[in-house]
């Protein structure tokens, strides 16, 4: 019984949040890694692309809510998501046409692209704040919990509760679907194959008749869709605030780099590694140990490896260790 309690406490405070956060990071990191793999630069505007996508989705969600459209127990935002994706694709393509294409034609160095994306980031930052404002926006509706802590306690009679939010379940399920579709697209379709070819060797791809502008366009469309999905899921699960999305850039890049920049599988693994390292290493094990150990061995202290102050230090320590010993990331990505 006590062991069960320990397990439930661990699931509630470590595994469930870790899985949800990891999925969100993974989706974000996939976008970053695709841009890096195919367009060959680190896109700093990714966090704000996510914010833009989430914003368009929120605006549509509000519209649907006002006309009484809903998805039953699921958040209305799911219905609005396709519109958010379309809006973000439009933004990404316009940015590419007006900004990035110029530098592509100049054959600018990657570092210049990085700086350009920094500028784009500030622009998007401003656009989002102009339209929806800098404050917190809540747009989650529908059923809040798949199972709430209170119901779980009542059902099982355990001391510890287990809460699974609808948004957490939704995040993990959506992430799995999106990743499956993405891999199918990259591996099985003609366009996907041409994208991978372009990523592997640009010149060879050009020689074999692949239209580079098409590849670039598809990449931006996919990245915009990924960014919107990641942004909306994150906003549903936590809350939407432009500033948070800007901050999200760091863990997303950490995930992508740990996994290996340019490698989609690496991005997913990296997302989970960063998420779980943040949660587990700073977790206070007191409760879990109290349940699982006999009374005589139960600890007095918190049994916390590191204070939560250091949770970012943890992910960056991992990042540095990986870069030192395996500069291309855990899964072979492109050299950084």
């Amino acid at each position, binding site marked *: 019984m006590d062991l069960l309690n320990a397990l439930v*406490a661990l699931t*509630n*405070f*470590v595994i469930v*949040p*870790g899985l949800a*956060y990891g999925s969100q990071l993974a989706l974000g990191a996939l976008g970053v890694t695709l841009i890096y793999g195919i367009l060959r630069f680190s896109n700093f505007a990714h966090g704000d692309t996510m914010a833009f996508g989430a914003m368009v989705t929120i605006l549509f969600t509000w519209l649907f809510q006002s006309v009484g459209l809903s998805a039953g127990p699921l958040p209305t935002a799911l219905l609005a998501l396709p519109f958010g994706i379309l809006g973000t694709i439009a933004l990404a393509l316009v940015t590419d046409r007006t900004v990035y294409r110029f530098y592509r034609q100049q054959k600018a160095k990657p570092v210049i692209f990085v700086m350009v994306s920094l500028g784009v980031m500030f622009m998007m930052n401003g656009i989002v704040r102009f339209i929806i404002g*800098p*404050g*917190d926006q*809540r747009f989650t509706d529908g059923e809040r*919990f798949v199972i*709430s*802590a*209170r119901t779980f*306690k009542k059902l099982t009679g355990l001391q510890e*509760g287990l*809460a699974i*939010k609808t948004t957490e379940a939704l995040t993990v399920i959506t992430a799995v679907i999106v990743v499956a579709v993405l891999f199918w697209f990259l591996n099985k379709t003609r366009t996907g194959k041409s994208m991978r070819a372009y990523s592997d060797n640009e010149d060879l791809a050009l020689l074999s008749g692949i239209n580079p502008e098409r590849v670039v366009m598809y990449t931006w469309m996919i990245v915009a869709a990924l960014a919107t999905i990641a942004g909306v899921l*994150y906003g549903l699960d*936590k*809350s939407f*605030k432009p*500033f*948070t999305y*800007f*901050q*999200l850039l760091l863990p997303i890049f950490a995930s992508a780099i740990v996994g290996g920049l340019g490698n989609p599988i690496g991005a997913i693994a990296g997302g989970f590694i960063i998420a779980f390292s*943040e*949660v587990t290493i*700073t*977790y*206070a*094990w*007191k*409760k*879990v140990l109290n349940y699982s150990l006999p009374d005589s061995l139960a600890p007095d202290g*918190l049994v*916390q490896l590191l*204070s*939560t*102050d250091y*949770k*970012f230090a943890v992910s960056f320590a991992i990042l540095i260790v990986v870069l030192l010993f395996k500069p291309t990331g855990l899964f072979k990505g492109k050299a950084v």
Partner: protein
Amino acid sequence: MKKLLMATAAAALTAGTAYAGGHAKEVKLGVLFGFTGPIESLAPAMGDGAELAMEEVTKSGKLLDSATVTPVRADTGCIDNGLAVANGEKLVAEGVNGIIGGDCSGVTGAILQNVAIPNGMVMISPSATSPGLSTMEDNGLFFRTSPSDAREGQVMAEILKERGINSIALTYTNNDYGKGLADAIQSSFEEVGGEVTIVTAHEDGKGDYSAEVGALASAGGDVLVVAGYLDQGGLGIIQGALDSGAFETFGLPGGMIGDSLPANVGADLDGSFGQIAGSDSKGAEIFAEMAKERGFDGTSAYASESYDAAALFLLAMQAANSTNPADYVGKILEVANAPGEPINPGELGKALEILAAGGDIDYQGATGVELIGPGESAGSYREIEVKDGKNETLRFR
């Protein structure tokens, strides 16, 4: 180009003379708040509060030679020292006669050290509450219309004790304000025999707080005290703790009191309690009424303190008959405290008249201003409980 140069030179010249002359037709007050960043939802009402006092004085036409008071707004970002100092410099360069601000404690200290002291500029902050600012070397240039958090720690401990709470988990936003307040709460609560199971920091602007909530839940406690910001990590922590069933009741210090918190969290927050600087003086009511007329919420946190900060500047200038910081700085404590005619919000014109005639005033303002020690508010607090999704005032301490 030549014309532009001439114009700039002329402008600079007039600005210079205005600064030196004292009997200027225009008094400029810098309004240096975090219009972006962690307390961006509070800053607009604070700015409005300060500008309300300026408008009132301008309309009365009794300040110095019927000078007009112009606010110059600038942003601190609340936690961005670089931005805050740069904007502080900008205000000084624009020739302001005093700075209302900063808002958050960390940037306030930075502006004080890097801008106010080197330029001999006076600052009155409506909302910087870190105990560290009481002892910081300020050359007598720094005042605040809000009390130090050391006092808030005592009040919070009292409230907790009276509610029969014996153990708390404590988390704070990782900056000067949060750390200072957390220390004050911890030491005061332990003094009255309470137990603090864990003290942990959280970073603002992150969104994901599962790690912090996990640690706090593991340590346990009757309530979770969140010494953070309501628009930032504080909200995230509360949401996370509620969702995972870790805590049900929360202790909310000043930075967490605002209408947006119950609105965002919903019914689950009912029963949580806290306190924020405020008084039951008649001034608070009058101010709320005046604010309503002007179209903003006068009960928003630190809006009334901002009004008082602006009023203190202008009254001190009148008392010193000068807009030069070095001249009027000595008068601030004088106009704020007894003896003299008590002055409520809306009576600034009357106060200016009394001062012009050489009389004494005791500015009460919207918060019952009483400056003690190194120029900070003595501190009365509003005890608040969340009921039906609203912050309700229980009593004053």
